[in-house]
Every structure is written in C-alpha cells, then in structure tokens.
C-alpha cells in the first residue's frame, strides 16, 4: 500500500511538471511569434487569446461551479463602457479605469447572484435571468446619451506624444502581448483553482448540490464567489475590447450573440478542464477565419455562412463529444483527466 502511495503521488507530480514545462515552452514560442508573423496573423492570435481568456472566466462559473450564465456579455459591456467613459470624460488611464469597471461588474454580478441564489432560481431560469439583465443593460445604454447611445461611443486616438502604454494605445503588437499575458494568467489561475479548496467545493456543487451541503458546503457563498470572480475577470476583457477597437455600440457589447460566442470555446474545448477553453479558442478562431476565406473563394459570400458552420460544429460537438475536445486529446496523450 505504501508503494502505491508513493507511485501515485509522484505520478501526479511528474504529470504536472511535464504540463508546466510544456506550457512554458508554448508560451515562450508564442511570445516570439510577432518576430515572424504578419499583422493579420497577429490579429487572429489576439482574438484567440481574447476568447481563451473570456472562455476561462466563463469556465470558472459554468465548468466548475455549474452555474449557466448566458448573459456574460453584460460584464464585457460594463468592463468596456466604464473605463472608456472615465478615460473620455476624466482622462483616467484605462489601467485604473479597469478597476472601476471591475467593481461595477462585480456589483451587478452580486445583484444577479443574490437574486438567483437566494431565491433558488436555478438552471434554465437562472440562464434566462442572466439574459434578462444583459438585455436590460443593452436597451438602457442604448438610451444613455453621454454613453454615446445607439450611435456608439468613440475613443479618439491620442496625439502622438500622449500615446503611451498607460493609455493602452498601441497597435496589434501591444495588444498581442496584453492578451497573451491575460490568457496565460487566466489559465494559471484556473489551474491553481482546480487544485485548490475552491475548486473542490465548486465541483462538488456542480455534481450534486444537496450532497455537497451535507459535507458542510455553503452553497450561496460558494456560488457567489464563482459569479463575482467570473464577472470581474470578464470585465477586464471589456477594457481590451474598448481600447483595441476604439469604438463601442450597445448592440454589440451587450448583445446575446456576444454572450453566446464566448461560450463556444470552453464548451468545444472542454468545460471544467484547465486547458479546455484554450484549446477551444485555438480551434475555433482560426477555423472561423479559414471558413470565411474558403467560403469566399467558393463564392458563398452571404452573411451568415460562418454562423451556420459554427452552429453545425457546435451541434456535432454537443452530440458526439459533449465533454469537449481537450479531454479526449488529453487521454490520448495520457495527461490525466483533469488537465
């Protein structure tokens, strides 16, 4: 029996060390990519890192704590508008504004969480609740003049001598490293959470809330932690959104299609796993770009082509491999089921 203990423990550690080395090498390579990549490739990778990041944020709430939010665009929108407005009207650096956005997002998340978890609104109803909040925000911001309203909010490019990292003004190169860092940080956080007490508690809740309670788990506070963390993380993506594209429209920022697009990567990659959202983002985004290129070449220029194919992929995934692509790959690579 003692031999088993030693073997198993070192098996865990050896696996983990291998994973960390592997991840380190990949990140290192990615950091070097801008030396050889085209501007277009960089912009695609920025999207990959962006979706990996928000995917991880959503993964914490759904993959770990099991709470289905279909209105996550709400936090992106808040995280985008608040810092943008602070910068526009008060000249506040987005690096500071980011925290204001986070606070605002967490406040709203607390309201949603309180309504949902205190009143026992679960599953589908909870998902609808999150959609309702997002839609209310969309319509509301549409009608707030100083936020630009439906016409949109535009962030002017600062004059050359004022453009600094503090203003988050830079081309794709700056945002490449920002989003790469965000994706790496998010994945590291999720990896840590998965093995931490929080991770165990969330997974127990996801598997069987009632049984979890008999083991002393306070469902309300655990779920609140999940939604607050997820919202805070997601709001940071909003800042990037705002300052990279430099324009914001309520119809885009808060729209349900935004909420749906950010759940694709974690679902296809693998919910509740550490690398699932990353793998999902790496598959979906380039595939999407490739699809557009291919369909254009075939003469299918109609808007919506990409959507149909994404929908078919999603459907195939959920029917054939609902646990996602990554767990399947991980098993083949013998990397353990929770990597």
């Amino acid at each position: 029996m003692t031999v088993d203990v030693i073997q198993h423990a070192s098996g865990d550690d050896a696996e983990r060390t291998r994973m960390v080395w592997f991840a380190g090498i990949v990140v290192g390579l990615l950091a070097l990519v801008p030396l050889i990549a085209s501007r277009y490739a960089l912009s695609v990778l920025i999207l990959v890192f962006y979706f990996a990041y928000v995917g991880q944020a959503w993964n914490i709430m759904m993959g770990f704590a099991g709470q289905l939010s279909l209105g996550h665009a709400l936090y992106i929108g808040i995280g985008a508008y608040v810092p943008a407005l602070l910068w526009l009207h008060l000249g506040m650096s987005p690096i500071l504004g980011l925290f204001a956005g986070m606070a605002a997002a967490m406040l709203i998340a607390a309201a949603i969480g309180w309504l949902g978890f205190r009143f026992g609104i679960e599953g589908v109803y909870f998902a609808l609740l999150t959609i309702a909040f997002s839609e209310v925000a969309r319509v509301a911001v549409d009608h707030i003049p100083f936020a630009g309203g439906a016409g949109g909010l535009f962030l002017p490019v600062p004059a050359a001598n004022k453009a600094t990292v503090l203003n988050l003004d830079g081309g794709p190169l700056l945002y490449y490293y920002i989003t790469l860092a965000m994706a790496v940080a998010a994945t590291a956080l999720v990896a840590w959470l998965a093995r931490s007490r929080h991770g165990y508690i969330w997974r127990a809740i996801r598997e069987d809330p009632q049984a979890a309670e008999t083991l002393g788990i306070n469902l309300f506070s655990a779920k609140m932690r999940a939604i607050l963390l997820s919202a805070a993380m997601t709001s940071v993506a909003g800042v990037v959104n705002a300052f990279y594209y430099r324009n914001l429209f309520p119809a885009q920022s808060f729209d349900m299609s935004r909420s749906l697009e950010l759940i694709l990567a974690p679902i296809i990659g693998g919910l509740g796993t550490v690398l699932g959202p990353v793998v999902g983002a790496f598959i979906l985004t380039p595939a999407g770009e490739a699809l557009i290129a291919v369909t254009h070449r075939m003469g299918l220029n109609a808007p919506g082509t990409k959507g149909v194919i994404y929908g078919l992929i999603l459907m195939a995934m959920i029917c054939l491999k609902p646990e996602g692509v990554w767990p399947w790959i991980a098993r083949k690579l013998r990397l353990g089921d929770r990597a």
Partner: protein
Amino acid sequence: MTLLAVDGVTKRFKGLTAVDAVSFAVGNGEIYAVIGPNGAGKTTLFSMIAGALKPDAGTVTFAGARIDGLRPDQIALSGIGRTFQIVRPFPSMTVVDNLMVGSLLRHTNMSTARAKADAILARLDLFSQRAKLARELTLPDRKRLEVARALATEPTVLLLDEVMAGLRPTEVDRMVAILRSINAESGTTIILIEHVMRAVMALANRVLVLHHGARIAEGKPGDIVKDPEVIRSYLGTEVLD
C-alpha cells in the same frame, strides 16, 4: 450524556403526517437504530435532523444547542454527518477527491486534507480504488464511499440511512465491523436507519421503532424484537424463531 435530543418533532406534507411528534435522545458514543416499515417516516426524520427539512413542530437539540431550522451545511459544520438512502457520490470525481470535499471542511491545507482522506480510505478498504472515478464503483463500494465521505467531515454524530440495503450478507458483516470499529476507536455516535435486522442486532445499543410516523417502541434490541406491537406492525412472527 445526551448528545442529540429530538423532542416532539412533526412533519406534515399537505395532509399527510409523515412524522408525528417523535421524541428520543441519543447518548454520546451510542449506536442507535431506527427501524420500521417503509413509509414510517424514518428518512423524513433524518432529513429534519440534518437540516434538509424544517420540522413543523418540535425541536432538535445537538450538544445543548438547538439546530432545527439551520441550513444543512451549518449542521454538517457543527458535527453531524449524513448519508443518503440512494447513494450520491460525486460521479465524475475520483474516490479520493470525493473524500477531500469532506475533509476540506476541517482542514484548509490541501496536503493535510488529502492525507486524512487517504487514511479514511484505508480504514474503509477503499484505498486501492482511490484513483477511480466514483461512477465506476460497484454498489457495495459506493456505499462504503458514502460512509467514508461523511466520515471525512469528522462528525460527532453519523446518520446512516439504510447503508446495508442491497449488500450481500458477507458485505453486511464487513460494514458492521467497520461501523463498530469507527464507533469504538473514534467514539463517533451512530444513528442508523435499517431494515437489515442482522445489522441492527449486531450493532445497536438501543432501537427506536416508528410506524405511520409515530414512535411505537424503544429499547434494547433483544427487548424490541419481542415487543408484540413491533412484531405485529413490522417484524412478523418469523423473527421469534
């Protein structure tokens, strides 16, 4: 010394009185059995003690403090562990991870929690399966897992709901031995709902008999099986042979 006192506890479900003013007290370190026909209100009683249901009347007192009306997690924290009649392991988590969810209640350090979990697994003969997913286990193993997981929270009182159901006689004996050793070594008070009389006779210090939600007898196992009321409503005359 009384550890858990249930006093006049009642539960009604829309016209059906599932538990009817039941009172009993369990002493520290006792093994106390609750028996009775199906529908007698035994699981409902457990659910009220464990906090899953609120009593419509009556009180539940644990270590001198009232616990009726508290949330299940608060009651678990105060030291009452519980298993379910139909076992509820966390299916896609490994055996050891299942236990860790329990041991993390008392130990925030991950390695300590894991060590405690491993110790309990060894005690319950599940260590060799620690890396298996819970859903891959056979029923007897799942039953032991359910008990192990509850034990991981280091409870003062363990509520076991028909933990012998579906086990073969040899497995029943094994479980009885495990429960006896837990009670003897850690002093854990055990309250068990059981139909398997073999286990009740082997384990219980005292037995409570429920019928139609009401208490009809309480006493030592040897006395209970001779009680005419108990024989009439539940045991049947075969048990006298």
